């Protein structure tokens, strides 16, 4: 796999794309331009109605919003599935300064909105203006900050933009990958009516055919609760072509049926009403395969393609002043190591995910394999070793109930909470608790309301109201996959210790490494720092990672133009929409 070029090398590269229009590489599709067939429709499902059509205030992440507002829009720079290298897209060229503090972008000529008007540098600049106004309430607001310091953008000439960063930052390029919004509509509203006028634009009651987009497909009709149909943008092909020079996209339309939930989406897929479905588990795959074997539907199934982009872990509460015994136990690294030795990841993979899972040992999701330090201490399932470690901290005898006790007769017991309704997590908690009980540690599983769980997890101070929580996190970056609110002490997702200060040298070290790593522009050097963060965390073991389930895909056999093998996963997606076509 090609690795992300360092920012320094990018600076030297001064990547450019003077040729107009943008040529979509053959390597991004499993079909060649010669095989492509024009026309047809790709039909997918949505779980719920879009919440807004306003790209500035949208806070959701589902197929439509991801496509319309970010992935499918004329972002200044983007990455393909075959490389981590950033390419100019809405930009014709971009250059990063040697100190990594500025990025200069030249906006591509010849781009057009779906109403035929030109896309200009002002359309990108106004997005920055709107998103950085707190009164607008944009979900992108925080992305314009490094800590408390704001990233700024200035207009340079007619078609130039300059991004200023307060410090060198590995996460700079995702910030530059900004999508335009039509200044003639959003900018005009902002200048005449302020933030409120912007917020009032393009709600779900808008006539979508009047909205303006830079995407390959643009909303034509919207029936709330039923479907949204996007038609080919007639101007997209003027600046987007395949390697043979053919205008893109190939398809005529892209429709999304609002299914309500994944069970209904599966029914629609089995009925042949949609062309694509992401099976949640092997049960779904079994149902689909059954329909295929019956000859009811003709689809391709890709099982266990890659791990999902999320984590699952157990975290113990270090701030339990009201119960000093438990606090001392949870703060003891050997206790946590003992608990790691009773985490039977293989059993979880077999019993919970029917074999479709992968063990997790560090905070980096297995899908981000480049960044995963595979050499960290893993503490494999070993109940005997766990018992030895418990004995080493004084729990060396058992009471009449078979529970380990220390010299004072105290048992090693705690409540392991997880969110009710998440059956996978409930099962993981039960498997873990059973294994802990085998060595005499009493882990009582409690399934509680999700919000209550989050309240407990994010509570602050010296005395927090939980023992241990099994939960997961999503989100993160391919460029620096460590959470800014997770690793450093005194941040809100530094879940094991939310007192004001670091309690251990390892926490302090991880915080320092996080800051150094984020500002290290050389990717390999940053990865080494990331490795050190993971090794340090594995030594301290404040968080016990469990298992990452696998992602599965399925789509109609008539569809072509998907990513090549090895380039399909939840981070890269399954296809580049302009290159997808209906083979028959």
């Amino acid at each position, binding site marked *: 796999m090609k690795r992300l070029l360092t920012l320094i090398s990018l600076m030297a590269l001064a990547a450019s794309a003077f040729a107009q229009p943008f040529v979509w590489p053959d390597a991004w599709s499993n079909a060649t331009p010669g095989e492509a067939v024009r026309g047809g429709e790709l*039909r997918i499902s949505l779980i*719920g*109605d879009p*919440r*807004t059509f306003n790209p500035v*205030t949208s806070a959701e992440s589902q197929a439509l919003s991801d496509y319309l507002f970010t992935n499918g829009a004329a972002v200044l720079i983007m990455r393909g599935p075959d490389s981590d290298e950033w390419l100019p897209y809405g930009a014709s060229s971009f250059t990063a300064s040697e100190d990594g503090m500025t990025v200069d972008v030249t906006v591509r000529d010849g781009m057009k909105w779906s109403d035929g008007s030109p896309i200009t540098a002002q359309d990108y600049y106004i997005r920055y203006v709107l998103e950085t106004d*707190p009164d607008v*309430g944009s979900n992108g*607001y*925080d*992305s314009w*900050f490094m800590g408390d310091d704001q990233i700024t953008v200035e207009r340079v000439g007619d078609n130039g933009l300059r991004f200023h960063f307060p410090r060198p930052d590995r996460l700079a390029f995702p910030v530059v990958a900004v999508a335009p919004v039509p200044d003639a509509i959003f900018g005009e509203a902002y200048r005449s009516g302020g933030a409120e006028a912007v*917020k009032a634009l393009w*709600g*779900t*009651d808008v006539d979508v055919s009047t909205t303006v987009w830079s995407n390959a497909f643009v909303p034509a*009709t919207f*029936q*709330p*609760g*039923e*479907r949204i*149909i996007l038609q080919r943008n007639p101007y997209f092909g003027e600046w987007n072509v395949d390697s043979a020079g053919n205008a893109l996209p190939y398809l005529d339309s892209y*429709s999304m*049926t*609002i*299914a*309500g*939930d994944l*069970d*209904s989406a599966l*029914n*629609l897929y*089995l*009925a042949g*009403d949609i062309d694509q479905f992401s099976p949640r588990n092997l049960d779904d795959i079994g149902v689909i395969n059954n*329909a295929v074997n*019956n*000859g*009811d539907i003709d689809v391709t199934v890709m099982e266990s393609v890659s791990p999902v982009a999320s984590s699952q872990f157990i975290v113990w509460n270090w701030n339990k002043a009201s119960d000093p015994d438990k606090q001392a136990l949870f703060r003891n690294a050997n206790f946590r190591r003992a608990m790691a030795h009773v985490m039977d990841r293989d059993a979880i993979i077999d019993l919970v995910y029917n074999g479709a899972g992968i063990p997790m040992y560090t905070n980096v999701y297995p899908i981000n394999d480049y960044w995963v330090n595979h050499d960290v201490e893993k503490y494999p399932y070993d109940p005997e070793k766990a018992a030895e470690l418990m004995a080493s901290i004084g729990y060396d005898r058992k009471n009449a109930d078979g529970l380990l006790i220390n010299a004072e007769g105290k048992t090693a017991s705690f409540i392991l909470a997880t969110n009710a309704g998440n059956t996978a997590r409930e099962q993981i908690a039960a498997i873990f608790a059973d294994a802990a009980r085998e060595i005499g540690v009493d882990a009582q599983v409690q399934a509680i*309301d*999700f*919000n*209550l769980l*989050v*309240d407990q997890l*994010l509570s602050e101070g010296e005395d927090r109201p939980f023992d241990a929580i099994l*939960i997961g*996190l999503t*989100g*993160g970056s391919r460029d620096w996959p460590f*959470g*800014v*609110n*997770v690793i450093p002490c005194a941040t*809100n*997702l530094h879940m094991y210790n939310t007192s004001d200060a670091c309690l251990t040298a390892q926490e302090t070290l991880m915080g320092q490494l996080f800051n150094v790593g984020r500002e290290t522009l050389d990717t390999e050097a940053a990865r080494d720092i990331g490795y050190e963060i993971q090794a340090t965390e594995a030594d301290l073991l404040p968080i016990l990672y469990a298992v990452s389930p696998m992602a599965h895909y399925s789509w109609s056999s008539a569809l072509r133009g998907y990513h090549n093998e090895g380039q399909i996963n939840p981070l890269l997606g399954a296809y580049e929409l302009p290159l997808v076509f209906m083979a028959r």
Partner: protein
Amino acid sequence: MFVYIVKRLFQLIPTFIGATMLMFLISQLVPGDFFKAKELEPNVRPETIQRMRAEFGLDKPVYVQYVNWMKNLVTGNLGQSFVSNQPVWARIARPMRNSMYLAMLSIVLLWLVSIPAGVYSAVRQYSFGDQAVSVISYLGLATPNFFLAQVIILTLFLVRTLTKDWFGFNQLIFPVAGMTSSNYLTMNAWGQFWDVMWHMFIPSLVVATSGMAGFTRVLRAQMIEYLGSDFIRTARAKGVGHGKVTYKHALRPAIIPFVAGIGNLLPSLVGGAGLVEVVMSWPGITPTFLAALQSQDIYVVLGLLVITTLLLMVGNLISDLLLAAVDPRIRYN
């Protein structure tokens, strides 16, 4: 009668205020709020979430939030949805309409099937037909709607496999999800009407089955009671035909409780058809309500509850008035 109606309407005011207070209080007892899930996003700063809460007034004390909500309510404003940043009414009007379609067809199906079945059971008491109606009724009563819907979906897929094998016809005879076909917008008005009816048939049939059991059994009991009464015997003695005795003399009084209950159908018209809507992906009020509950879009939840409460109160009043209209023995003063 007029004085009675005015009196009842005035009595509704404290009931309504009490209901809203209770609803609001219960909604506040739920841990967390709409923005809670955002706190688990590694790159969202706490001050941003604080700002969002302040924007929707969630940082204010509960009683202030209640007073503000009530102030809006008396002006007909149900509040603002956190999810879509739209007025609540705009968010719920369409799902309400869709649920109303479903409820109306299921009521028609319910009456169309239950009245003849109830009459038949009463007239042919203990016959095989009566026993069959009873068994089917109890099955309908005992089978949860969401389960029946899933069974029917499975059956539709099974039928497709059979029709494909036997006739080469690889299509579902009824849709398994949704309210319209993908080409709905290209159809003419008549085509659109039939398309919705085609999608609506299975879910409304499922909804109707649960009501059929009760309706049929009660009607049967009512009919048996009336068919054994003196005025029926007199009518028969005077030579009135069997059909006329059954359908005019016995059915009319027997059906009074159902006519009087029409008012109570009001809230169920917009209250949603329950989990059938979820299972069959019907874009009605139940999925909207559940989604709002799940995301703690609290003003949408409260808006729906307020409307249902209002309709329940008005429906009760209408029922009482209808009862007086159809049953001369009842008078209000």
